[in-house]
């Protein structure tokens, strides 16, 4: 049996936040990762799902040998990231969403060739692979365009080709569809799936905060928040956790001072998230059973809130996240931004 493509054991990373220059003393520590245990098998498409600041990028940086863990251990392609980074590097590659790597004066093809040389790919083979991948991702016509003249989306496609081009055993994609439009995202997802299907020994670790992307693409997903892995399973198994629950979305008039906490404390209500927009509110409920809906409706109507629409839906990864964390990913990102 081949070793796991990625394996972490009680992995942790703490950032020491320094004060201003004159205050050399360390002021506080930020736990970016804590006790992360993961096992990703060869051939898997594994997703790390979590809001911004959850620790996904830190984990990727450790696994790609760019950052040392402060506790625990991690192995990639069978090698320890701290002890044998030189043995891991020829076997991996990484692409980050929104990166601006390469040189604007070089064309798409030249930039990709340059990076291929750092991995020792012979030039002829590199050009063949580059052309093939550019065709697949729909960038072949722009191969002689200077990368500074590409739009953000096209530039990201070029970066994605850079990751695939060296044919790594383990590929790390950190938010690969960040900033891409719907069509381009779909093309990228198709390419990811095709790349994995072509060769069973390839493994891909993808971080995303797009639930649909994780649900559609990944064999298994780990939900991560505040540096901790809260759950790890197949998307369907994760959603199964909520199968016994009843999930409702209710669109109402403004809440008239009715607090979400009051709704949350009603018997049988597991979680409530609320998005208030101009003149309406969208409430998502996870209830222990359907009968609890009556209690919710009574509470709303008693507060003078008008129900405009009520929908029952199947559980999604977003619901799983809410059930695990208590807040929606959007809420967490909003509150992080405000801090």
């Amino acid at each position, binding site marked *: 049996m081949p070793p796991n493509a990625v394996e972490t054991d009680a992995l942790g990373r703490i950032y020491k936040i320094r004060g201003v220059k004159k205050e050399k003393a360390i002021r506080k520590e930020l736990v970016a990762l804590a006790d992360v245990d993961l096992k990703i098998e060869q051939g898997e498409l594994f997703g790390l799902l979590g809001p911004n600041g959850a620790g996904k990028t830190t984990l990727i940086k450790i696994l790609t040998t760019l950052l040392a863990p402060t506790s625990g251990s991690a192995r990639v392609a069978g090698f320890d990231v701290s002890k044998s980074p030189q043995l891991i590097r020829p076997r991996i590659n990484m692409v980050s969403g929104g990166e601006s790597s390469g040189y604007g004066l*070089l064309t798409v093809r030249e930039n990709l060739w340059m990076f291929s040389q750092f991995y020792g790919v012979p030039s002829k083979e590199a050009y063949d692979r580059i052309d093939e991948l550019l065709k697949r991702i729909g960038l072949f016509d722009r191969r002689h365009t200077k990368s500074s003249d590409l739009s953000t989306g096209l530039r990201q496609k070029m970066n994605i080709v850079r990751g695939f081009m060296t044919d790594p055993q383990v590929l790390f994609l950190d938010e690969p569809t960040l900033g891409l439009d719907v069509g381009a995202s779909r093309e990228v997802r198709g390419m990811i799936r095709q790349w994995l299907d072509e060769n069973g020994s390839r493994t891909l670790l993808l971080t995303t905060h797009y639930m649909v992307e994780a649900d559609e693409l990944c064999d298994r997903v780990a939900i991560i928040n505040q540096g901790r892995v809260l759950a790890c399973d197949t998307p369907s198994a994760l959603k199964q956790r909520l199968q016994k629950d009843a999930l409702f979305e209710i669109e109402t008039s403004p809440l008239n001072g009715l607090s979400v906490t009051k709704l949350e404390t009603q018997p049988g209500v597991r979680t409530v998230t609320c998005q208030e927009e101009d003149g309406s509110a969208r409430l998502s409920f996870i209830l222990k059973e359907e009968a609890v809906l009556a209690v919710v409706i009574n509470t709303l109507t008693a507060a003078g809130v008008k129900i405009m629409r009520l929908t029952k839906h199947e559980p999604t990864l977003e619901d799983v996240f809410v059930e695990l964390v208590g807040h929606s990913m959007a809420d967490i990102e909003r509150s992080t931004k405000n801090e």
Partner: protein
Amino acid sequence: MNNQPAAGGKKYTGWRLFWHSVIARSYPRIIGQQRDTSWMLFDVVMPLGSVIAYVMVYRALKAPVEYVGFVVMGGAMTAFWMNVLWSMSSQLYWEKEQGNLALYIMAPNSMMSILLGMALGGLVATLLRAVVIILLGSLIFGVQYVVASPFELFGVFAIAMVALYGMGMMFASAFLLFGREAWAISDMVTEPVNLVSGLYFPIKSLPFWIAAAASIIPLTLGLDAMRQLAFSSGFKFGFLTPQVEILILSVLSVIFLVGAKYLLDYTEKLAIREGRLTEARR
């Protein structure tokens, strides 16, 4: 899984990987020069202006005729010094800002090959500028060269460049570590270095110990030796003999290259340990 370097295809390793990386990293600099020709104005016309000014001053002062050739050669060599001080030195810093540094560290090639590629690219690109300055300066002022040993002259130039760009490679890591503070130091030393390294006059005119101290900049001795080997005045205006200067430059080359490797390793370790260089500063 452990026995395969990657999922597919033949890949170079060892020295072939090192050399391919050097060439690949030098490529953007060399090709970039052809695509952005603004350097013609900033790196040729403006230095040529300084050369003309110095020549006018020397002629007005009735300085020895050889000084005109010294100034032209100094003007050409200034291009290399400026390239090292302002471009080569800050290169790793800008690579970090652009997001390339993490990709370089993560790749299986050595970071020294990246630095060497930057140096080679800078050297080749600057060589063209220096040649243009020499040609134009010599034509305008009718400079006469008397080269007894072209091989020796080329040898001095080559070893001076190795030492100079070795110094630049060392500076690159230092700039990455110290950021804007290094910029300030660079800014501060530019003019004093221009003065004591004898870019526009022979350093023999300086007190011995000042000239000796200035010899830490490889350009100082390289230029002095080249002037002795390219003009009829020979050792008359020379600081030390070309042979001694070649020896000192060789020692400096080794020191700077070893220093660059040491600093680069240190920087990489620090980057990985503290997350300072590939992560946004927290």
